[in-house]
């Protein structure tokens, strides 16, 4: 019985891994591969249902783990929600996208494993668990991005992703080893306390702490695609199967942020004054570079990749601001971005399954060819650009205003420049989003109707509904995010 209590916090991961091991067997047994896909939906929907019930009804108290490796709270719950929802959307789209491919059992198994890794990071309370979670998700997604191994681009994407990913995980591990050396523990909150003891571990440990901070910044920065650690992202997003690009942009990136928040805002909060300007500069560079390059892209998947680079820059604002309100804003944006970005990728995937390309030119006249795809894409892009009353507006509003509030109340006054840069960047981004919309509605293209598969339609519809609902129920969502941000009880409230 003891062992069961210990395992209780790991139930979601165990369920996902159990189903992941079943997938190849199902693939062998059934000729209709949709059964495999539906089977992989079971654990996702089950855990999702449990998490939603918990988040909205408070019917369950998270178990305290006896070995302090994981801590389940609203913060992790919200992240789990994102990962599971993106997982469902990706599986639904894949159902049609990979219908002609071999080894579908492994494909769905890898998706489940990747999500298991992500949820592990979401509930981690220890650097150790963060690293293991990052690696489980990382290794699965290396394989996933190279899933179409007969395609040159897919194989190349996997190689690049793998090399940069391995390199970054080495950086992360080295940083973790240094933190362990300095603090004498790998537990994040214990580390936060130990960092306070003004670096008495060994001589020069203050400099080593900064080195480790920069290395971990690079390691996590790879996951969330911060400039200059972002170079892999466009290549991999372009080469990987489109649903997987969606998974990487909408879920894997968010896993990086979960790790970021835990390590920087709990573990390294004491040394905040050492790293906040560096991260602020990184945030501004990230959003600016992402948007500037996105302007000159002609491949939609690459454009979306750069746009998510820019979005990562927006979310990063929360770290230097470092208030609960900012974290809530970041959570909100993570939530909304997951839906609008995965939705946009799924539209591209839906078009790909009708043998339409992913270049900007292929979007010509889409408004006539498939009103559903066109209107969904329009709403996703508008939401990404932050136009009210869509979700993207709501979350950007909170996120940017947190910098404004933060600049006057707890933090230094230069924080206001983060808000200014973010707003200017949002305006810039409208340019390339609007261009896609113009191509869809104003340009004449092929007249042939597009028939979107039903499962893909369902996936897009889910994202679309959430993109609108999250914007309209602004207040309720914000309330949830604020409660989740209370996990960072060491931070000032911030408004």
């Amino acid at each position: 019985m003891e062992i069961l209590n210990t395992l209780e916090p790991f139930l979601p991961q165990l369920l996902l891994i159990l189903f992941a091991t079943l997938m190849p067997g199902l693939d062998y047994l059934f000729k209709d591969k949709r059964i495999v896909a539906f089977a992989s939906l079971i654990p996702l929907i089950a855990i999702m249902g449990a998490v939603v019930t918990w988040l909205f009804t408070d019917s369950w108290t998270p178990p305290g783990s006896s070995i302090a490796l994981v801590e389940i709270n609203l913060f992790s719950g919200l992240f789990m929600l994102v990962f599971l929802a993106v997982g469902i959307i990706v599986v639904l789209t894949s159902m049609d996208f990979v219908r002609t491919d071999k080894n579908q059992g492994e494909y769905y198994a890898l998706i489940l494993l990747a999500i298991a890794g992500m949820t592990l990071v979401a509930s981690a309370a220890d650097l150790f668990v963060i690293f293991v979670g990052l690696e489980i998700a990382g290794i699965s997604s290396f394989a996933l991005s190279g899933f179409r191994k007969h395609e040159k681009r897919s194989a190349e994407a996997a190689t690049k992703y793998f090399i940069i990913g391995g390199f970054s995980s080495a950086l992360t591990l080295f940083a973790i080893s240094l933190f362990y050396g300095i603090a004498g523990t790998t537990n994040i909150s214990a580390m936060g306390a130990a960092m306070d003891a003004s670096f008495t571990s060994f001589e020069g440990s203050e400099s080593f702490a900064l080195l480790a901070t920069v290395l971990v910044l690079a390691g996590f920065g790879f996951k969330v695609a911060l400039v200059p650690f972002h170079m892999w992202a466009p290549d991999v997003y372009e080469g990987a199967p489109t649903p997987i690009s969606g998974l990487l942009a909408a879920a894997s990136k968010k896993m990086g942020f979960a790790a970021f928040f835990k390590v920087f805002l709990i573990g390294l909060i004491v040394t905040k004054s050492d790293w906040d300007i560096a991260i602020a500069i990184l945030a501004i560079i990230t959003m600016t570079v992402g948007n500037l390059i996105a302007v000159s892209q002609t491949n939609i998947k690459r454009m979306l990749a750069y746009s998510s680079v820019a979005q990562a820059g927006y979310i990063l604002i929360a770290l230097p601001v470092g208030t609960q309100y900012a974290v809530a804003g970041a959570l909100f944006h993570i939530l909304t971005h997951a839906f609008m970005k995965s939705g946009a990728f799924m539209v591209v995937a839906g078009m790909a399954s009708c043998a339409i390309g992913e270049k900007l030119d292929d979007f010509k006249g889409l408004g006539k060819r498939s009103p559903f795809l066109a209107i969904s894409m329009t709403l996703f892009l508008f939401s990404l650009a932050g136009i009210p009353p869509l979700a993207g507006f709501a979350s950007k509003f909170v996120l940017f205003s947190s910098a404004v509030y933060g600049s006057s109340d707890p933090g230094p006054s230069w924080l206001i420049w983060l808000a200014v840069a973010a707003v200017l960047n949002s305006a810039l981004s409208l340019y390339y989003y609007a261009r896609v919309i113009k191509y869809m509605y104003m340009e004449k293209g092929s007249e042939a109707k597009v028939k979107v598969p039903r499962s893909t339609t369902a996936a897009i519809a889910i994202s679309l509904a959430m993109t609108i609902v999250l914007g309209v129920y602004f207040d309720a969502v914000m309330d949830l995010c604020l409660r989740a941000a209370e996990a960072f009880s060491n931070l000032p409230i911030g408004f």
Partner: protein
Amino acid sequence: MLEYAWLIPVFPFVAFLLIALLPKRTLWWESGAVYAIAGTLCSLVLSMLVVWSVLNGETLTTDTPKFKWLEVGDFSLEFGVWIDQLTALMLVVVSIVGTLVVVYSGGYMREEGEGRRRYYAEITLFISVMFGLVISDNYLQMFIFWELVGLCSYLLIGFWYEKPSAASAAKRAFIVTRVGDIMFMAGIIILFKYVGSLDFETLFSESAAVAVPTDMMILATALIFGGAIGKSAQFPLHEWLPDAMEGPTTVSALIHAATMVKAGVYLVARSYPLLIHAPESLLFVAVIGGVTAILAATVALAANDIKRVLAYSTISQLGYMILGLGAGGYLVIYANSPGGYAAATFHLMNHAFFKALLFLCAGSVIHAIGTNDMRLMGGLGKKMKITSLTMLIGALAISGIPPFSGFWSKDEVLAAVWHAGEFDSVFFLLWLMGIVTAFMTAFYMFRMWFMTFAGEPRSEYHAHESPRIMTVPLMILAGLAMTSGFVLFIGDGFKGFMESSIEGLLHGAEHESLVDIAAEIFTDPLTYVSLTLAVVGIMLARKIYLTPGFDRSMFSRGFNGKLQRALENRWYISKFYDDFAVKVVYGLSLIADKFDRYVIDGLVNGFAFLGGNTGNFIRRLQDGNVQRYASLILVGICLLLILVLYILPWGG
């Protein structure tokens, strides 16, 4: 019942979504008219239920249900519902006229083909946002819907956007009303600054009025009235309304006669609790109303376009309502009487019915013979019996002939203005303007009716009566135009009903009995003055326009023809704006253009060039070599290390 009132705007909005988004083949009859009619009918039913509850004394003005959309710190943007007698009145007007116009469109827009879908989508959207405006419980929400009705009006005026005149009229209407909107916004910003809230509940309380200094209250209320000047086409921003007649006639009937232009009047009535703290603003309101009424009536005397006559008449009648509200405020302050307020809102309702009727009749005529020019009509009465008869009812109503509705409300407005003269003698002058306007109204309305329906045809045409779907709404509206005046005497009486919506402002005013009201109307000599003038006006019109061979050139010769020309040129106001625009604004815009072209564009292009090229340059770094990426990561780490280890400690 009232807690469901928020559903009223939802129905037409759903209809809008269905019409806009459904595939073409599922739109059924008339490209979506079915959805439009169903949507507006649902709102009509719900509105009537709400109105019934209000009649039974229920209101929703405290603890209004709110949907909070956005909250940042101490500022929140909420959508709420506010139901009182004034809201109920507007609900009656918008739902009835809206439904009838949408039904009528089923016949009128038949020829439009593909465009009908756009038409029905836009008109249901308009009805939806108009309901939203009416039930708003704070100024910010009202302002948002205020802008949205403006947008719909813009879209619908420009419905035939291929026509340059329609496109420019739409733009003009939008821009001119924007001037008012900006004033409105400035007004509510001032209020927010002092009170810290835009909720009616907070703003209309006594404590809020104390919080605003007197001069700021005058400024804020005058600015809010500025919004009404734009939206309700009051002098000097009234010239957009006649131009707006470029849109389909149904749009003119719904938006530019019965509902949207009433939003300004509604705004003034709604702001009464603020206005009574600023008598100066009330005087301003009354003067603008009086001037507008008489000015627009004179122009209507000489107009030859049937829709323009109606447009000017609308402006003139709106002026009446504004005048009545201005005078009513004085009565509330000094005489503790709701007379003017009730009269103006009463006229608002009656006018909505008979003016919508007149417009739809005009639409029926235009539909039949295909021109707006009254000089080409004549003798239509024999061919279009229903149209001519219903239009006669409308004309009698607006002229103020008993027992039609216009008589009761117009008389009440004039009585209120006269009464207000006891407190400020300017109102006597305004009363005189009002009574002259009443005379002119009767004259130009019957000029129009005689020129259209009586006498002999003045051009070749093949007229026919309009289909049933158009004439039935006409008959319903005619019925309303005949009877809506009698609500003055039903139940508690209209006055008593409206009185309760501004109860808090009246300090124990005596409730007038219905007999008193009737007696007052029929024993007051002023009633007979205005009635006589109206009859004389009608007779004069008959004499001039129905007597064969009557020499009408005597008018054009009067004052060496200057008067005639001035009227035909709308008192040169439009020309003034155009000249002003051409000479002054164009001169300014030339300078601005130069500045824009060489300085701003230079900067923008420079940035775009820089941006595009930087983008391209950085993009080239991405050469596909994965080791380059890894090196960049290392470079990034080194730079960050230098930054955190050396630069930042050195700087801070």
